[in-house]
């Protein structure tokens, strides 16, 4: 069983809410969620990944975050990961993802 993704868009921001299990089965859902904001070389948009409803995260999900970062322009990307539960935050920190993303 995997999770469910919902997206909210404002003028400058795209918020991606991930509920349930964030794992390899979410790959295409997650990609669809952000792709219209990164396709055709669009840059400079802010992404907020809301993990308040996320129960579990695996290394494939970390890989998907890296992919978003790349498609959003790597070092120029503006991606914030918010509301992660302590055990999920621990996984992000073990991978030292705070160096690549804002985690709050």
């Amino acid at each position, binding site marked *: 069983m995997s999770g469910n993704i919902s997206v909210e868009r404002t003028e400058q921001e795209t918020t991606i809410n991930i509920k349930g299990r964030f794992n*390899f089965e979410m790959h295409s859902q997650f990609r669809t969620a952000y792709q219209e904001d990164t396709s055709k070389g669009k840059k400079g948009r802010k992404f907020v990944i809301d993990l308040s409803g996320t129960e579990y995260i*695996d*290394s*494939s999900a*970390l*890989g*998907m975050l*890296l*992919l978003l970062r*790349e498609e959003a322009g790597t070092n120029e990307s503006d991606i914030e990961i918010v509301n992660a539960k302590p055990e999920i935050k621990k*996984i992000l920190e*073990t*991978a*030292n*993802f705070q*160096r*690549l993303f804002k985690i709050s």
Partner: protein
Amino acid sequence: MAYGMKILIVDDDRINSTILNRLLARDGHSVVIASDGVAGVEVFHREQPDLVLMDIRMPRMNGYEAAREIKRLAANRFVPIIFLTAVTDEDSLVQCIDAGGDDFLTKPFNRTILQAKIDAMERIRQLHGELRRQKETVERHQGQLQQEMEIGQHLFAKIVSAGNLLDAPCLKRWTSPMSVFNGDLLVAAYNPAGGLHIMLGDFTGHGLSAAVGAMPLAEIFYEMTAQGFSLSELVEAMNAKLIAVMPTRMFCAACLIEVDYRQQSLMVWNGGLPDVLVIDKTGRVVRRLASNRLPLGVVALTREDRKMEILEMKSEHRVFLYSDGLIEAPDSEGEMFGMDRLMSHFGGDVQPDKIFDVILHSLMAFRGGTEQCDDISLLEIDCSRAGEEPPGGMPRRSEKSLPPAPWEMSFAFHAGTLKNVDPLPTVINAVMSIQAPTGHRERLYTILAELLSNALDHGLLGLDTEMKKTPTGFIEYYNQREARLNAMESGFIKLTLVHEPVVNEADGRRIGGAMRIHLQDSGPGFDHTRVQSYLEGNAGHGGRGIALIRSLCSELVYHGAGNQAEVVYQWTYQ
């Protein structure tokens, strides 16, 4: 409506078969006729019809028997059999179905019903054919996949396990892959000076895709370790390789450890694996080395990223290294094994040498029969056995052996180079590519390592040798070394190697060689008598320093203010 089928009529009643023949021919079907069961089976075999109309009571072989035989002959092909019957009692109908019949038609024949039944059967027959073709395709693909998996497994085993030293006496390990291929990479090998390099890597995902990434890493690990490169350089090379070859969403959480018995030190680099645990003789954790680096294959590494944690190794120490599959292993309720449950075994209640087995036991009991959903690895390093050689002795690289010849080479390493590069592998590999005295790589490596580190640490950086004697001083020594190396602006180390063949005076044969190694540093010189006594007195701390060089070389002299050293290494040619 179905057209153009080939239909077999098996009926001993001429009138019946003639009527049917006519009806079917009008609808565009071709018809073959047999007059009893035996003939029916024969004609079926010869003509391979698409559908059979079968009478029940016939001489020689009745319809039930003939139907069974035809179904057996058709094997995988679906050939519908419609029984022709005058009776409609339940028992006869059940017998028709039992014999393999697919439908029945009651006499007298009604053209519309006959057409409808043939159409229905044709639809089933086509579906069946479609299904069979799909099944064959799936089977073919499965066969191909199986073959490719086998080739992959072979390559994986050869590359990843080649020269793997996981049977080193100080290591205890347990791995449990969730598929044929293990996404956890666990490798170990000795460097030329006898230091043990260990790596645990955990790739994104599992199975084949993870294993593909493991292969280049294993190759880099073995090759660079054998050539004498340091862990930092291994980390740098592996990271660069993964960035070059792996898709963005794949990376490798990894931990590399060097167990240096001679220096009595442990070096640890942890990028994305759970906390490495070091315990003492009470079984309690004395050091917890959390991941402080990004996993391999994510971004280019800075100088800081390549830095190792250095620990003084004590023989009572045991080091535990594991993949996140251990902590995240679920029970039947979906609850995870968890860090707390793991840590509960390090509370001092379990004898240190039993902890490894207790953890495994506890994991098995927790998981019960739950299906595994990640690769799991657990490794223990028993530091009290770090000095023991592996069964079968230390591995030696085989080098091509060239007859001794005269040659000379010299190197000059300046501050800017020494800051960034360990000169040792460069020098040793240059020597080995020219002369390659078989079985001498490790000795030459040891000699050059001692000489070069003396020149750098004491000559150029002015580090006090006394410092390493206490545990706090040990760490302080490496911190100061790092700081001074960073701040170093000038200075050099010059190294000259002069090789001459040794000739047998009686017959003029070249029987070996003598290598004169001359090393000079730009430092103020040092009191080599004190360094000597330090290195000689250092045996208790694992190293044998100058004493070791003396045992390997025929001469050792210091020149100048102590900033020049000269040794002669002799070898015989077989």
